[in-house]
């Protein structure tokens, strides 16, 4: 055989091989910040999704076909999210996506998935804009920022009786969206914020802002953003002697919030809204134990990601692996997950949201507050 013939044979073999592979697997993307400053959340997503996929595959897969997960890294950047979404759709031929993490990534990516008829279930993107645009293929297994903001605002007004509230955000889709949602409910209660400002993500020095907060005598500081900024922010607030109560959302729900603040004493008393403890559901008990046995703490979004994968798998199973029909099916049916029974409204939001208040203590742990 001449070289050319050998090469041709090899190429056709390779093509044949990849085609058979593509048919044998159900490719599902796990999209999120697997690198970059928020890679910790990407790891949470991956841990949850891969454990769920393994459990489903061990039980026979989806109609006998195995789930193959593809890691898609958006680094929490909208531009990169669009390009990995295109890659998932075009070259990986994914039928569904669990992700993305950041709302600012989920929203632009969802347009790509809609065009390609791919089902998208996010475990973590809470910005209302994600489902409010009326796309048929988007779902989330977490709550919405306006629900989260409502809970925080009513707690600030009713329980804390605060008068001077400073609202700070990180200028990002998630952080600002959350802060705005909180602010509008706060204003509806008749409390006007004394300060409304954004800080820059990636910086560590917020002393100037803290001094300004001191100058307006804020008794509550509400922060919409992630733990990497919340940590140094709350530390500098305490170091400048402010005793204002610090409240934030689910963006700080990670042990790293304590390490980045430098010491548990700085996070003592910090309040946060988050879904009712995802490890407390009876349906998820075994999974939680399995995670702990494997040395993974099912913190933050691990269980959410597990549940999102279950939702995807169940919908695909009911509709012969057709993602468009699967999205349609999800709008009218309930799915059993490790976080209880989930059902979705016509926009793709959960029918029942479960936000509650948590408080961090001086040991660097958080626990649910009785409300």
């Amino acid at each position, binding site marked *: 055989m001449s070289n050319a013939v050998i090469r041709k044979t090899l190429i056709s073999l390779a093509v044949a091989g990849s085609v058979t592979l593509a048919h044998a697997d159900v490719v599902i993307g796990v999209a999120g910040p697997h*690198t*970059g*400053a928020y*890679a*910790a959340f*990407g*790891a949470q997503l991956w841990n949850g999704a891969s454990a769920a996929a393994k459990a489903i595959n061990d039980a026979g897969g989806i109609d006998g076909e195995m789930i193959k997960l593809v890691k898609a890294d958006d680094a929490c950047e909208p531009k990169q999210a669009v390009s990995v979404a295109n890659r998932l759709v075009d070259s990986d031929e994914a039928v569904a996506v669990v992700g993305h993490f950041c709302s600012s990534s989920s929203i632009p990516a969802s347009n790509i998935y809609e065009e390609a008829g791919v089902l998208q279930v996010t475990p973590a993107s809470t910005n209302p804009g994600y489902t409010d645009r009326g796309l048929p293929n988007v779902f989330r297994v977490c709550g919405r920022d306006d629900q989260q903001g409502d809970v925080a605002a009513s707690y600030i007004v009713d329980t804390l009786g605060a008068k001077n509230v400073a609202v700070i955000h990180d*200028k990002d889709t998630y952080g600002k969206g959350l802060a705005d949602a909180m602010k509008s409910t706060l204003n509806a209660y008749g409390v006007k914020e004394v300060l409304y*400002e*954004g*800080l*820059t993500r*990636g*910086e*560590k*020095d*917020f*002393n*100037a*802002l803290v*001094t*300004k907060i*001191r*100058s307006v005598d804020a008794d509550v500081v509400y922060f919409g953003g992630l*733990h*990497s900024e919340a*940590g*140094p922010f709350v*530390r*500098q607030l305490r*170091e*400048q*002697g402010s005793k204002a109560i610090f409240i934030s959302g689910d963006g700080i729900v*990670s042990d*790293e919030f*304590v*390490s*980045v*603040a*430098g*010491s548990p004493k700085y996070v003592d008393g910090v309040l946060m809204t988050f879904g009712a403890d995802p490890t407390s559901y009876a349906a998820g008990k075994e999974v939680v134990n399995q995670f702990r046995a494997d040395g993974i703490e099912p913190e933050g979004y691990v269980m959410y990601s597990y549940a999102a994968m279950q939702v995807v798998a169940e919908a695909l199973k009911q509709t012969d692996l057709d993602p468009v029909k699967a999205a349609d099916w999800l709008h009218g049916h309930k799915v059993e997950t490790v976080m209880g029974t989930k059902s979705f409204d016509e926009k793709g939001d959960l029918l029942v949201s479960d936000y509650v208040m948590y408080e961090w203590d001086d040991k660097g742990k958080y626990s649910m507050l009785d409300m």
Partner: protein
Amino acid sequence: MDIILQQLVNGLSLGSVYGLIAIGYTMVYGIIGMINFAHGDVYMVSAYVTAIAIAMLSFFGIESFPVVILGTLIFTIFVTGVYGWVIERVAYRPLRGSSRLSILISAIGMSLILQNYVQISQGAKQQGVPTLLSGAIRFDVGDGFVQLTYMKLFILCASFIGMGVLTYIIQKTKLGRMCRATQQDPKMASILGIDTDKIISTVFVIGATMAALAGVLVTLDYGGFDFYVGFIIGIKAFTAAVLGGIGSLPGAMLGGIILGLSEALFAGLISSDYKDVFSFSLLVIILIFRPSGLLGKPEVEKV
């Protein structure tokens, strides 16, 4: 009044850190005419080394602040200095004499290598070091107070001492004379018997040393860090170096202080939303009227 004074304190301590890191940019530019874009990441590496040093010292049961800080400083400055030396050796020396563009790209590549290498080896998690020095001095001003934490005071002293020692080395010592000679005319300097390669290496090590000093101080003050912290602070320090006149040592320090103060005052008195817009607009305006920066000398074409 107390608020403005407090903002001056905030800005001064932030600015002194910018100044320290800016020294690395300005010296490297002065000597080989390129921007070392990996410099911010050298700073990032020093944050990790700081945490390792503190962990090691506490493992041996050493807790007293002066010993810990001194040990950490020596260890971090040494390790980071080695990084500076190796980076020059690997990424810049082989490209000596090639076009500026390839050196620039090599610098950016080095920055990405450092970020990814630290991310892979240390994890992408946010890390933190515990508070070593707490407490503050307070001055009552009118109804309010102005506060200077001991850590901030320490940062101010340490960075000014660092800058002072460096200025002395460059202005008064033989090593400094050789640096200045190499900066003025590398070819002539090497004809006169100066090992210019060695001087260039030394300058990289000095730059890394100053970044290490900043890394220790900032890490101890703010606690948290990750593999990405070099990026923003690197850009800010680079801006400070350009603002003060790139290539000029006093310029880097002045640029750092001006940038820190303008950020703090703008954020404190107007809005932190547009803080960076303001400081970078300031840079643009200064460059329009003084293209070589505040203390920079216009480059003379050598004939």
